[in-house]
């Protein structure tokens, strides 16, 4: 086994992105969808840190911290919406909440 290169990180990142995207698109439970979004964001983070290390530039890591912060806030808001939704509709399934249609 050779050293772990940037390519490996990128592959991991691409895998996480793919898994997250599929999760978002296919799972009905909103909790799972939110978790899948976390996966996508973390795929982005790995990507950022991998290139930061590659270019020896700290900007990417700083940006990753921002993304983590953003993810936390987004999770908090998302779960809040979810609780409100459950109180009103007694459901956590995304396809049962389709009020915004034509």
């Amino acid at each position, binding site marked *: 086994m050779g050293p772990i290169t940037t390519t490996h990180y990128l592959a991991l990142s691409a895998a996480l992105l793919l898994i997250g*995207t599929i999760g*978002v*698109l*296919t799972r*009905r439970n909103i909790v799972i*969808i939110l978790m899948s979004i976390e996966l996508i964001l973390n795929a982005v983070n790995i990507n950022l840190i991998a290139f930061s290390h590659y270019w020896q530039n700290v900007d990417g890591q700083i940006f990753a911290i921002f993304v983590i912060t953003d993810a936390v806030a987004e999770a908090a808001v998302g779960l809040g919406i979810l609780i409100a939704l459950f109180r009103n509709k007694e459901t956590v399934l*995304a*396809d049962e*909440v*389709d*009020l*915004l*249609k*034509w």
Partner: protein
Amino acid sequence: MKFLDQIWLIPLFPLFGAAAMLLFGRKLDPQPPSEVAAVPGLEHTHDEHDHHHGHTHEHAHEHATGHEHAHGHGALRTLVSLLCPGMVLLSFIFSAGAVIELSRSAERMHQVIQFTWLAGLPFHMADGRLATFTADWGFLLDPLSAVMILVVTGIGFLIHVYSVGYMAHDNGYYRFFGYLNLFVFFMLMLVLANNYALMFVGWEGVGLCSYLLIGFYFQKKSAGDAGKKAFVVNRVGDAGFILGMLLMFSVLGTVKFVDVNQILRSGQFHAETVGFGVLSTMALLLFIGATGKSAQVPLYVWLPDAMEGPTPVSALIHAATMVTAGVYMVARSSALFQLTPQTSTVVAAVGAFTAIFAATIALVQNDIKRVLAYSTVSQLGYMFLALGVGAYWVAIFHLFTHAFFKALLFLGSGSVIHALGGEQDMRHMGGLKDKIPITHWTMFIASLAIAGIPGFAGFFSKDEILWQSYSSPQGSNLLYGVGLATAGLTAFYMWRLMNMTFYGKSRVKPEVEAHIHESPAAMTLPLSILAAGSILAGWIGTPKLWGMSGWFRGLEQWLEPSFASAAVEAAQEGAHDASIEWILMSVSVAVALIGISIARYFYHHRPEIPDKFESRFSPLYGLLLNKWYVDELYDFIFVNGFAKGGGTVLGAFDRNVIDGGVNGAGWLTRLSSTVSMWWDTWIVDGAVRLASLIVKISSYPVRVVQTGRVQAYALFVVVGALAFFGYYLAR
């Protein structure tokens, strides 16, 4: 000059009383109408002779508990009993004050004009001049209206006091006094107005109040009908009045008494300029108005039926107010009637005919109040006879004395009815002389007065009328003869009434007999005062022949300024031989005595004689008892003929022409609306729907994408992102 300038207040006092009663009376003395229905009124109709035991009970003083509910509001009732008569008393005091001041003033006439009431209606008079119709809210006090306001307020006050006693057991107490006060108000407006238009306000007002009061016991159909009859018959006369008034305006250009008299007397007016007979027409139209109010042939029919009202109302209508209005109006228009001798002849003829016609009916009536009602009609006939022969002051004189003795007779009969618990049929009376002595003696005096026994009020005025109808240039032997015959009939029927009521054996039903009682002081006191008036009132107009002066000839001198043209008669009168007047006076007294004697003989000594007469001359008797079938004739001609027959014709016209037009219009509307609806549905609505359909179809592709599912949107995002990637990678 204090009271003189305040004469506009005189009518306002009773108006205040009326307003207080009619607006707030229900709160003061609350009685639901149903309760009124539970207690029938004091009066029976003439055909309602069967006895009502509970009724008698109601009016018996011994059974105080029987009318507990009527006294439930004692304090408030006392307030009503003080306020309403008090208002009339105030009017009387102001009237008396004003009259005293008038007698001291030099010109014997005083006008108070409050404001212009009707103004600014310009139009062309009959002779082409342009004039403006104006009428003031103004009051005129001159000797004529002075006599009238004293009679109205004085007699009116006594009747109010009497009513306090008479109506004590009756419900609707406040309503009764409210109407009574309103009546006095309108009558005062009538006699105090300074122009015909304002007089007409009072004229209509008394018509309204007579309707309200005659129909006071409105739960009883006959009372309601009598009220309506009075109203409708009066309206016929009123049409004459208003036409006469308008004609007067279009010819003379004014309806103000002072101006009218001035124009007519000064000769400024020339009949030729406006056409022949216009003055006669005017006078005749006004006289038609007078026949309605003052119950002359042919419009007298309402008055006997007016007996349906409570007895004080009969007294008020027949003695102090209402019926005197026509006499007053003709007297007020004396200048006009003086210029139209033909109309005056008509007035005299109608008066004389009414006098004897009504007297014959009064001979056989059995209802005590009906006898008095026809007596009133007859006495009014006398007054018109006097007016017709130009003896205006004599008519007012008779009006004045008649007010006393006729008010007394009505109130006395009310007292009798009260004593007998509602009995009005004289066949169930008799022998009441000692049981109700005050009523008996006061009515005795009144009967002497109306019969024309020397020394009593009626003698002076009646004798003067008879003398004038003989001696005046417009008089004639025929008029005198009719008047004399009427005097005899009057004496007869009055003493028939007295004998049947007070003398002889009692025919009172036993159950009523026990409750007979003299009326309370509130009723006997007015009777006594009126009795004094029935003796004294005539002495202000003693015959010239008696050579008295000062107060004893006071009325003629007092009224002279109002009837300046009457001076002609005075001059004419002197030309006759004094011995003739003495003879005629003796003849009329003799006739009266004969009438009294026959009545006494018939109804006291030989009560079987009238029955024999009745069977011997039964057609004549029936004719008189049924009042010459005039009511039936009017029913046939006017009620069934014109009203119902006309109704049939008009009904057919209505159905075919009017309804046809309405139906046609409806059909047209329906047709056009159908067309309009079709256009709306298919063209207008169609266009709107087409537009929306186009939008709907064209929007379909973009619409279906909006599923509302978050993951579908996310899928679009991913697909879109992949598409971009694919595009860049493939490039």
